[in-house]
């Protein structure tokens, strides 16, 4: 999964696995110490019909909706500073919260997130990007 930052796409192949947005690697490493973080499995570049898709960053409305759902699930006050960059683990999400958040997003957006993809979501932005990609696939 890649996000377009500015005009360039960052891709860092890592022995067969694909890691998104390498400029945020340090962020990935500071994910919660407990397994309550959603983490990155190796995303294999699959040949055949699954062309690697480049998605643009999600619309602000989508990010906003995700923020709302996250705040609700984690019982954060409405005015708390949750943005696209917020990492779920840093907001206090444990593994159960993560599953619930993904389900909340599925319901809200009418999409279905596979477990495999759910693991790639570390920030609110990641979730919003994935949602838009899935919506696109659904409608397209």
């Amino acid at each position, binding site marked *: 999964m890649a996000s377009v930052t500015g005009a360039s796409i960052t891709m860092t192949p890592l*022995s067969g696995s694909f*890691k998104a947005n390498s400029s945020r690697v340090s962020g*990935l*490493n*500071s*994910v*919660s*110490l*407990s*397994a*309550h*973080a*959603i*983490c*990155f*499995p*190796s995303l294999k570049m699959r040949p055949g019909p699954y062309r690697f898709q480049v998605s643009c960053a999600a619309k602000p409305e989508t990010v906003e909706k995700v923020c709302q759902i996250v705040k609700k699930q984690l019982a*954060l006050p409405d005015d*708390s*500073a*949750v943005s696209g960059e*917020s*990492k779920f*683990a*840093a*907001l*206090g999400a*444990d*593994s*159960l919260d*993560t*599953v*619930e958040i993904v*389900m909340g997003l599925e319901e809200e957006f009418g999409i279905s997130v596979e*477990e*495999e993809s*759910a*693991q790639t979501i570390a920030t609110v932005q990641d979730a919003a990007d994935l949602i838009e990609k899935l919506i696109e696939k659904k409608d397209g």
Partner: protein
Amino acid sequence: MEKAVQRWIVDISKWNPTPHDFYSALSLLPLHEHSSITSSFMKQEDRKRALISRLLQYALVHKVLGTPHVEITIKRTLEGKPYLEHDKAPQEFPNFNFNVSHHGDYVAIASEPLCLVGLDIVSYSISQIETTQEFIQDFSSYFSSLEWDNIINAGTDDNILNAFYRYWSLKEAYVKAIGSGLAFGLDKVEFHHTNWTNIYVQIDGVTMTEWRFWLFELGKRHWVSLARGHPRLATESYKRRLKQTEFNEEEYGMGLHLPNTSFGSRTVGQLISVLCSAKEMPKENE
């Protein structure tokens, strides 16, 4: 080898630091840990847990390995699993590794000399917002049908949640031991037990004899699960950090059957003392 089998737990509700105390404790940790504690977490409680978690890691490494403070470098894999860099463990600890967990009032750490170790603390209270059935339903795909039956037929809501959380924490302990994220296919990781003792796991129907599991009650409605198992199941990114992943049967057996000590309480004050004395060791050059 027993020396490297450690189980420490801190009740964080007993530590209420002033900002000065907090930063003073923080200063005992290497600089690269500071920002991940202070700026990553939104809630103060989470920051407190994160700080104590790191204090536990550095204190334990120092206690077990005797490593001078300045030489302890703890990093995290991509999936977030902490490991010790530039491992200076003596030969008797072929694979010194550790794992931490924090939830509610507790932060805990466990270490092992040879086997992988993973742990998970859980606590729960009955939701005011939704029914127990509604709550657990969201997670049904993570359980095998046997486990699910055991959960929903456990009796009262309290019993159901109890069973649910115990199974969940065992799965988490396993996932954390191997250094994965929230692994998919957890419905194939099926736990068997006799009243929550003699716990073993079957993966895809195959009993994993090289893995052992325990559940302990901590009080205050908190439980902790512990997994001990074979390094060859570690995820690639974590396997790379291990010294040794293949063992002959005898050697591995020794590691697997080491006594599983119970969790010993530590106060934050004790951790701070350990780290202070670690800093005073020769070769310091901060």
